[in-house]
């Protein structure tokens, strides 16, 4: 490829030259040919189209049909798939579990990430070792994390099960609804904490030393100082992480859930995304599953809009 570019540089160079001549005094880059910016955008747009718009359009369209399980055609049913999903007690049960799951995972991974970052920020000796140890968890792929989690909660060898047994808690992950939910949340949080840790730590280190020192002179109480003078400066980071964590809890925990409840989805806690998968790929209910994913899409859209409208303008100080 590089060879080809080297042997025939003429047209490419001329093309680049044409795109870059006549530099404007203004900061904004001006293109003299209207097509060129679209050419530059094309690869990105293609990716977005193939992996987002097209499947989304597919999902929306198939959510209005009931498809024959054997692929012999589809019948238009209007909003039936939506009313079926929203009307079902099971769906609403899973939806409320998803809400609780999302709130807990987001709260704990943000909280723990913050706590660890604040502590790591104060560590002076063996600083980088400590940080690397913290961050390395993030390098574990989600299914592997799920497997590790599964092992930690294994009925026979899982250290968590043994620990719980000490306190008289007979843990049965995969069988008991509450125990499974507990393990799922724990593993999901564990997987996400390093991500939050990295961002919060770098946010903390972006706070000027002199501002901290001014606060040290102005406020004797350490906790109060943290909440009034330091934490507010992390708000932009926290806002970004809030969105990322909610999305994580809603969607990216799929692998963890999958490993934990595999083949036993029926009596186990699952989230809406997992139900989309179960109904669509196990139950072959393409229409219903599509309707559910459209609902999910709308929920995320609304959440993100709300966050940007109400939160964002309060957190940026410049």
């Amino acid at each position, binding site marked *: 490829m590089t060879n080809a570019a080297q042997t025939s540089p003429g047209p490419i160079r001329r093309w680049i030259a044409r795109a870059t001549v006549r530099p404007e005094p203004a900061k904004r880059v001006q293109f003299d040919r209207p097509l060129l910016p679209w050419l530059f955008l094309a690869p990105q747009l293609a990716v977005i189209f193939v992996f987002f718009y097209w499947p989304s359009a597919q999902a929306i369209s198939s959510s209005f049909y009931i498809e024959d399980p054997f692929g012999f055609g589809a019948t238009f049913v209007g909003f039936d798939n939506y009313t079926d999903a929203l009307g079902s007690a099971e769906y609403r049960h899973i939806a409320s579990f998803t809400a609780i799951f999302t709130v807990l995972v987001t709260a704990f991974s943000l909280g723990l990430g913050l706590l660890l970052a604040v502590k790591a920020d104060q560590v002076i000796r063996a600083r980088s070792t400590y940080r690397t140890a913290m961050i390395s968890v993030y390098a574990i792929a989600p299914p592997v994390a799920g497997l590790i989690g599964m092992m930690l909660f294994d009925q026979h060898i899982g250290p968590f099960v043994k620990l719980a047994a000490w306190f008289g808690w007979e843990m049965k992950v995969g069988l008991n609804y509450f125990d499974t939910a507990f393990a799922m949340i724990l593993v999901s949080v564990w997987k996400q904490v390093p991500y939050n840790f990295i961002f919060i730590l770098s946010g903390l280190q972006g706070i000027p030393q002199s501002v901290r020192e001014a606060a040290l002179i102005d406020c004797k109480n350490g906790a109060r100082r943290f909440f009034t003078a330091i934490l507010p*400066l992390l708000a932009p980071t926290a806002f970004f992480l809030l969105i990322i964590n909610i999305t994580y809890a809603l969607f990216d925990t799929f692998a963890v859930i999958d490993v934990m409840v595999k083949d036993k989805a029926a009596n186990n806690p699952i989230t809406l995304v997992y139900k989309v998968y179960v109904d669509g790929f196990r139950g072959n209910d393409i229409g219903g599953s599509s309707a559910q994913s459209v609902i999910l899409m709308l929920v995320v859209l609304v959440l993100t809009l709300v966050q940007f409208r109400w939160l964002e303008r309060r957190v940026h100080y410049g």
Partner: protein
Amino acid sequence: MAAITITNVSKTYPGAAAPSISDINLTIQDGEFIVLVGPSGCGKSTLLRMVAGLEEITVGEVKIGDRVVNNVDPADRDIAMVFQNYALYPHMSVRENMAYGLKNRKTPKAEIEARVAEAARMLELGPYLDRKPRALSGGQRQRVAMGRAVVRQPAAFLFDEPLSNLDAKLRVSMRGEIRRLQKRLATTSLYVTHDQLEAMTLADRLVVLNAGRIEQVGAPLEIYHRPATTFVASFIGAPAMNLLDAEVDGSRLRIGSHVIDARRNMAGQGAITLGIRAEDLHPSATGLPFKVDFVEELGAQRLVHGLIDGQALVLILDPHLPLQDELRLSVNSDKLHLFDILSGRRLEHPQTAANGIPVPA
């Protein structure tokens, strides 16, 4: 209001080979304005921060008023600090920035409001009270930082190069403002700068630091006229004092092949370092031959750089006089500063004033 007493204080940063501050003794009177001055890295900030409680004191004792504060929290030392980069809280308005320290000290609300209003009036911050720092200019931010210190009504103000981020003109006016404010409040102040002009104009007493040690303490003019060491001589005053290698022989001074007859007994004997301020050299009919090298025009005066017998020298001349390539220079013999050639310490003349007339060799 309180005096600050610094006794035998040393500081070695963890892991550092040499101390950054060595055995400093200094007493700051109640209400006095002390300026710490010295080249970059000499330990000015370190000393100030030890008084503030932001840096641990390795050896020695710091007292604010009658209280030893070595192990007292910065918040409990009853000091207020003004930082070089202002260090305002970006998420608080100007009003909240000033009120923050008072609120945390459980000052009554009415009192906080009164103090903030008073500080805002003094510093002309009234129109900006509800703005966030990002919407202020550098000079305004600096004033907010001052306001934050003033409302606290502390026993001492600590300033760490508060003006060095401002442009030259603003620096001059803020300098005046700080001086006025400090005189009015009569609050003990410790002020760090490496700008010797700022140091001269602000200080009641100057403390010249070099490599973690005090070189000289004294009133600005005293230091200017009687620098204790060659270091102080070359650091205080612009242009820097000329330092020449010379030899003393009774009442005669030899610079290379030229001789000045001071007509009185000089301090020291043999090789010394001779200091002459640029403004103390005058052209005359007879005297030391001086070869002009280049000229810097400053408007009100003209700095002429050149050589006396191969040694660099600068003098200040009236810009109206015509320039020549060669001059002859004379100097009043009380304006000669003599320093030990090895230690750099000042050698005092026996006190008998006489006009020295340079004698050509």
